[in-house]
């Protein structure tokens, strides 16, 4: 019995509500277009020689992180979310960084890095 009745039953309230959502819609479409543009940029940059493959990897991962940040912040509403969800994600971030840190340590197994 915790579910309240439909929030749209008050027509006035609904008008305000719908207007707020509508403003968001434009933002979603803009972010979608930005993501498509960035996909094109990623592909184009991969054919630019940055001197070393490592440099190309770094550039591509930078663009990918930007794109992922946009998806997380806008589509997944992480830009404005409740505190509990941030707490969950802080733990996740910590552990996943730990995972990658282990890989980083493996570099020391190669005295002369190939």
């Amino acid at each position, binding site marked *: *019995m*915790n*579910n*309240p009745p*439909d*929030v*749209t039953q008050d027509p006035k309230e*609904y008008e305000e*509500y*719908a207007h707020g*959502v*509508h403003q*968001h*819609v434009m933002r*979603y*479409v803009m*972010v*979608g277009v930005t*993501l*498509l543009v960035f*996909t*094109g940029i*990623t*592909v184009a940059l*991969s*054919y630019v*020689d940055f001197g070393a*493959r490592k440099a*190309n*990897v770094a550039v*591509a*991962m930078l*663009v*990918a992180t930007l*794109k*992922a940040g946009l*998806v*997380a912040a806008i*589509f*997944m509403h992480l830009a404005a979310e*409740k*505190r*509990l*969800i941030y707490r*969950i*994600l802080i*733990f*996740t971030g910590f*552990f*996943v960084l730990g*995972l*990658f840190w*282990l*890989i980083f340590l*493996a*570099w020391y197994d190669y005295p002369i890095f*190939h």
Partner: protein
Amino acid sequence: MEIPYTVSTRPDTGLWNAKIGIWLFLASEVMLFGALFSAYIFLRIDAAPGTWPHGLLNVPVGTMNTAILILSSVTVVLAWAALKMRRYRAYWWYMLATISCGVIFLVVKLGYEWPQKFEHFGVFIKPDALAKYEQYLGNERRIEKGLEPRIEITGHLHSQNAKEYEVALDPVNADPDNPSMDRPHFLPLPVTDKIATIEKADVQRATMFLPTHSAYFASYFTITGLHGLHVLGGVIVFIYMWLPVSKKLYQRNPEHLANRVEVSGLFWHFVDLVWIFVFPLFYLL
């Protein structure tokens, strides 16, 4: 029995329950894919020179699939917004668009990209026999330029007998000294009709482009396979929420359906987010 807090927020958490549920699930998903990506990095930095292939995947098709997933992320969030505005008809169409995008992605992946790899053939040459196949490998020029040596000849398996493989060569092996072959092409070049004869005694291993081909293809098939399963899971959930059975829920409590779409949308965006990293790592770099 009614499930509590599907729409109203729980006082102690400040959230409706499914929202916490999906974020806990996504947190575990981050660890799952994180483990696979760290394995990818580990395998790649440890790969011996010449063993990590470049330019074997179809970039235009991969780019198209990336765009399709991004588009579906937009349509699912528009579907949710339509429900919030109580426009069921618009919701229905946006959901149909999302489902279609997911299905197209899977058909392209499983019906086109993977089978093409299964037909492709690669022969790894033994180190002491590399010089013998110099005309297909072009290593003298590559070493001069400080590039990694080529150790594999690829193409389509034309025929084989007890002693030899006959391979219709990929352009990179048909014209190995052409500097334009040093970097992958955007448009995939078709297999040439130039045939190379390779003695089996000179071969370290020969295989189709299957997970057994290399660490590269093993991680490619594992990660894109797991990602594909996620796409399939998302599509099944979306189909359920698009069918008439969900219209009944909408008529009873539209906010409840909107919340269901929101949490499955969160999952869908996560799947998109994983692909944003998969695409450059496997297709471009």
